[in-house]
């Protein structure tokens, strides 16, 4: 989006009630309200930014927490356009939310080739408490992650498990890509326009 001072744009996608807002809430404000505040679905998308330091360099990541309701899917391009990373969230206790992930992978592959994908199973604390509740096995998720060359994380916004790890990884990946791109630029030939322009043959 125009006018953004943000270095890396990150977008969260996934079915409603997958825990996207809680994930962002934990990362940006380091708190979890899911136990005290009733569920509130996101309207449209909420935006937040955070400055992180990777290898001594600080970058700003702008995070788009999108609404999961189906009616927003048609408009989701507004939110993921130009994103460097997409966190595709699914609820570890809800198979249907995992099935929805394939839809998002397809969308991103089609419209945003340069967007790196991170799979994120949420609500790990529930699964830890009662393994019976797990509806998406780690091996299933891993094979999907392999398919789309994505990283896989199983996180809990309640305990904070792996959330910083996920975002740190996004930031380092971003820096690596940027460094690689700069390197490529240096190595590439620079074609300079020299000399006078020839008059257009058909204009005379």
């Amino acid at each position, binding site marked *: *989006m*125009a*006018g*953004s*001072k943000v270095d890396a744009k990150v977008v969260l996608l996934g079915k*409603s009630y997958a825990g996207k*807002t809680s994930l*962002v*809430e934990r990362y940006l404000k380091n708190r979890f309200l899911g136990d005290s*505040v009733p569920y*509130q*679905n*996101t*309207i*449209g*998308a*909420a*935006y*937040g930014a955070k400055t992180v330091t990777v290898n001594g360099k600080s970058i700003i990541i702008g995070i788009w*927490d999108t*609404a999961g*309701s*189906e*009616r*927003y899917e*048609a*408009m989701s391009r*507004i*939110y993921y356009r130009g994103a460097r990373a997409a966190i595709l969230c699914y609820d570890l206790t809800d198979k249907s939310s995992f099935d929805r992930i394939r839809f998002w992978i397809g969308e991103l592959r089609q419209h945003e080739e340069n967007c790196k994908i991170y799979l994120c199973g949420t609500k790990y604390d529930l699964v830890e408490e009662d393994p019976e509740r797990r509806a998406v096995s780690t091996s299933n998720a891993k094979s999907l992650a392999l398919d789309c060359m994505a990283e896989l994380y199983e996180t809990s916004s309640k305990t904070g498990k792996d959330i910083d790890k996920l975002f740190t990884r996004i930031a380092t990946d971003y820096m690596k890509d940027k460094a690689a791109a700069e390197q490529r630029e240096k190595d590439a030939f620079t074609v300079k326009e020299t000399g006078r322009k020839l008059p257009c043959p058909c204009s005379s």
Partner: protein
Amino acid sequence: MAASGEADQPREVEFEQPNISSDSDQGDFNESEAPGKSENAPLLASDSFDDLSYNDLGVNDHQTVHRGTIHAIVRQTSTSSDSRSNTPNNVDHDSLEVSAGEESLEESAESQMQNVSIADKQEAVELAAPPFSSDDEDVNSPEWKNQKKHVFILSESGKPVYSRHGNEDKLVTIMGVMQALVSFVQDSKDSLRSVVAGEHKFVFLVRDHLLLVGVTRGMDSTQQMLLQLMYVYNQVISVLTHSALGKIFKQRRNYDLRRLLTGAEKFFDNLLNLIDTEPGLLLTAVRCLPLDSQVRDVIAQSIVQNAKVKDLVFALIIAKNQLVTLVRMKKYYLHPMDLHLIINLVNASESFKEAESWTPICLPKFDASGFLQAHVSYLDEDCQVCLLLLSVDRDSFFTLSEAKDRIRARLVRYNALSAINSSLRRTSYSTQQCAISDLRHFLYKARSTAQYTSPELEAPYTKPEEQERLFGLYHYLHHRIHTSGRPLKILFHVGQYETLLGWVTQGFELYAVFGPLITKTGAIHAVNRLLRWIKREEDRLFILNSVTF
């Protein structure tokens, strides 16, 4: 529920002509000086209620559902920047043509006949409902039956979309009955409008692809119920757009619309609660937060100076359901019904309090075919003062976000934000401030500006039941004055517990509630004084200047 003393034959005086002023010894009130009157209003003068007869409902969707405005703005601005490849609203405009057609007068007369004959068949309606099986507890529970007002939305094919009370899944049968009733009457080229059964009133509104049914045993008249159903329908449009709704049902007639409305139920619930408590929706007028006019100017200027952003159509600040300021693009106005949907969006969503948001919203009166994008943020820590920036440019989030920071900074610098907050903390104003004895409460609507004002609810209207009863009285008074068959200019109504006076002119609508013992002349003196008081306060109570970018 005590109904305005109807049982004991209230005395009523109806005037076809306003002969009020002749009785007044306090100096006549000059109607052309109607308080809150302005040639330059920020809102569209509301047309809604008087025009809301059956005649313009039903088929003529194209009249109330405007389309193409967004497209026009985009076209107008995109000539300067050809970089934009696609229109900002993703719904394509040409995909849907609504069949036009005017309902003839004869037809409407016929339908009124239908109305009567159906009412006679009330018994039949109740019998028509099939016996419910045991797992239909919801419908059979006394709790459900005793709800004062029900609102149902169903698709044309009878699929449940929304029910105010109870789970739609368990109401499949009852919604089937509603659909059957409506299509039975439609079969004979007619339309079902309302059914009265005992103390219940059933009101039906058929719009494109949806059927809305309201059931009330309150004071709401049929026409008022229709207005409420219109609000509910517009809320659906606001979430989906009219074009998308059409497209969906064109593809699949029996589509389960609830899939697309997940998470939007709270908008309907909240809207219906607003309808039951907020007079503005009855009057199709908006209440403004009382502020000194200089402060309001500072606020508006802060927006104008800092939000000169291309494609920004409306910028407004809302606090506790009241309008603080509205800045608009030249040529474009906001309709009070659309503003109520915006207020409802803010009121119903907790999630805006957490972070800056960027959300699509369709304003049905502005352009029903596409979305505007709204940048929504709260300006204060307590999340009371909400700034909305509505644009047709889907990519302007960061531009608007920066504009918001500048606006906020300027509001803080000029102490305007604290002025808003202190106005919010103070109760609006007391009826006593008007210094009119025996006046208990009133609603005053300035018609040209679509704004209204009313004092705080005080004794004897402190308990919720009492407030509900007062609101019922206003519904009654409003209904009597606006009855389509016999509209009145003035109505003096002596009830058991209070006396009501309603007065409607070109410029204003006034509904006043007095103690039961006031005389007719006393009431007339009182409203004249009241009008003068409002006139003195009009700068503070109304937004009289429309500010544009």
